[in-house]
């Protein structure tokens, strides 16, 4: 069967996805971004670079990850649910795909001091792992609140030799960790490579992170066809924080006729002030180097988001998602803290897979009444990470709930 295919070739040469994206950073960072872009574009076409990356993805990460039919949930819901098992990657989430790609660029550029920001700690752990492997110095900025709720990951990063710098400004979460990482980068740009953990930040980061993550979608296209004999699934679903696991799955499918849904953190409800539903409730603005949608007040100050999951607790979103939302190519929905907690338990009980709390938001969408999923459809959900890091948060919430 011939598939209908529409062209999609964003961002433009200046890193814009229509009015989104770009480079809104101090002039000091421009030479570094130019150089990063140049090295990346060359690496992308370079056989040796791609071979090295592919070998690492295979033997270090354990790719390819399975596309797994969740039979029990499929039976319960009456459609075919496929899980793309990014939780089975080394270090437990999709974040390693990107960390590997970027550290190879750092190596090429001769930069041996690595910095990163982290929320859930999954990106921090992935960065600490690859930095250890390559023998580079690694500094991870992490909000104090996140250090508290993701203790396991803090310990893992320490074990692998990373230095954690606690961030106590603002909301003490991912937003502020990102500010500190950017300030470090501005001050040490000559010898430092900033490994950004999501498809956010100034150009070329959103493009480069998306490309490194799109191994997820590329594998999925082939696997789905092999497993079902069908050309394409009906729907794709992923959770959206900054947006990297979602774009990783979505991007290779964008030209095709597949319905795509991103799920944001609804926190305590999108009609309260405590959520992280950037596309659902945000406005146009500039945060962390890119124009995109963001949560802000009437004075243009960034407002504090809330989500039970540290990885989604972010007031911004990658510029490409803002574009995909505005152009209506992708639909964005929300799931609340409570829905995510229920989904966390449900997936654990039904399939014996403990998902990350971030991922649990996408899983929760499957149970929402008006989700538009019809009987017998094939739905692929990006199981972005495993939930080991979240068990104490979940335990505490359950205690509260049943007290």
């Amino acid at each position, binding site marked *: 069967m011939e598939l209908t295919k529409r062209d999609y070739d964003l961002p433009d040469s200046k890193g814009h996805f229509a009015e989104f994206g770009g480079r*809104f950073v101090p*002039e000091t960072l*421009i030479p570094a971004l130019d150089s990063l872009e140049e090295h990346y574009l060359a690496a992308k076409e370079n056989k040796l670079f791609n071979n090295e990356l592919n070998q690492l993805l295979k033997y270090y990460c354990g790719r390819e990850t399975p596309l797994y039919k969740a039979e029990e949930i499929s039976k319960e819901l009456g459609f075919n649910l496929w899980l793309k098992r990014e939780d089975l990657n080394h270090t437990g989430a999709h974040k390693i795909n990107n960390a590997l790609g970027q550290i190879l660029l750092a190596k090429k550029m001769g930069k041996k001091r690595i910095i990163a920001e982290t929320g859930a700690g999954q990106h921090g752990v992935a960065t600490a792992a690859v930095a250890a492997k390559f023998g580079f110095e690694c500094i991870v900025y992490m909000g104090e609140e996140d250090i508290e709720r993701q203790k396991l990951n803090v310990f893992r990063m320490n074990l692998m030799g990373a230095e954690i710098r606690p961030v106590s400004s603002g909301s003490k979460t991912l937003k502020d960790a990102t500010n500190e990482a950017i*300030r470090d980068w501005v001050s040490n740009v*000559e010898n430092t490579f900033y490994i950004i953990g999501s498809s956010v930040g100034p150009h070329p980061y959103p493009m480069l992170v998306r490309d490194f993550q799109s191994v997820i979608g590329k594998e999925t296209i082939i696997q789905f066809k092999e497993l079902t004999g069908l050309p394409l699934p009906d729907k794709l679903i992923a959770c959206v924080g900054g947006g990297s696991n979602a774009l990783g799955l979505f991007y290779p499918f964008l030209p095709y006729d597949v319905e795509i849904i991103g799920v944001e953190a609804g926190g305590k409800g999108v009609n309260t002030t405590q959520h992280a539903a950037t596309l659902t409730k945000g406005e146009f603005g*500039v945060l962390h180097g890119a124009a995109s949608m963001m949560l*802000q007040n009437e004075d*243009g*100050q*960034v407002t504090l988001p809330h989500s039970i999951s540290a990885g989604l607790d972010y007031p911004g979103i990658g510029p490409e998602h803002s574009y995909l939302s505005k152009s209506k190519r992708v639909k964005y929905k929300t799931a609340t803290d409570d829905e995510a907690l229920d989904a966390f338990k449900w997936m654990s009980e039904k399939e014996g897979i403990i998902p990350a709390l971030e991922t649990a938001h996408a899983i929760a969408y499957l149970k929402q009444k008006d989700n538009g999923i019809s009987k017998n459809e094939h739905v692929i959900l990006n199981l972005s990470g495993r939930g080991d890091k979240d068990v104490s948060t979940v335990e505490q919430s359950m205690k509260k709930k049943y007290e």
Partner: protein
Amino acid sequence: MNRIQKLFTEKREKLIVYLTAGYPKLNSTKDLVLSAIDSGADMIELGIPFSDPQADGPVIQYSNEKAIKNGINLGIIFDQLEKIRQETSKPIALMGYYNQILKWGLNTFISDCKSLGVDGITIPDLPLCEANEFCKLSKSMNISPILLVAPNTSNENITKISKKAADLIYAVSIIGITGNDLSSRTELKTYLSRIRKYSSTPFMVGFGIRSHNDVKWFNEYSDGAVVGSAIIEKIKNKNDYINSARSFVKKLKGNHG
């Protein structure tokens, strides 16, 4: 000619004082600005507090956070500027991160600046590659867009940036954020003479400048010195912040009496 263009035709030592609007008190802006001017500041750079000031170190971050807690916003700042303008004819530039300006509306922001007698605008997170619209609109209203250059900006880009800005550029003294330490004088000299050679406009230097000696030294190699973190530090937690500011600005100018 606007007040900035005029000031920078004068060949003499110039001190530009940065203050955070709404800090340390919501309504301290006017008195502080006027005291700094009384004490010898040649130009004021007034910061619009932002929740996420990427280019600022701990001292200015703190003043931003405190000012926001005090209840400052752009509307109040414009009211304060209106009163300040009635009492001084020294050049005043606004410094603010791009998000707040976008939120106000770029066009409206610049025309409000115009009608309140603001002479220049600095946006630290708006580099040359994104600054077309901003520069065009500012210039059309005779406001100077003060673009920035850094020690790692290429010669070619220094020329491009100064041409685009047209009146004045702001040279960041170091690769870093506000409040960081200065690099060696030899390194600085090389950098500043590079700007002198490749810039088509006057330039002021800022970041890490904290004494009269610094101010004098930078004026030898540029057209003016900006002091920010050092003065904010001096007025932090002071009941008598006005007098602290006065005596510090006098010292920066070399007047101890």
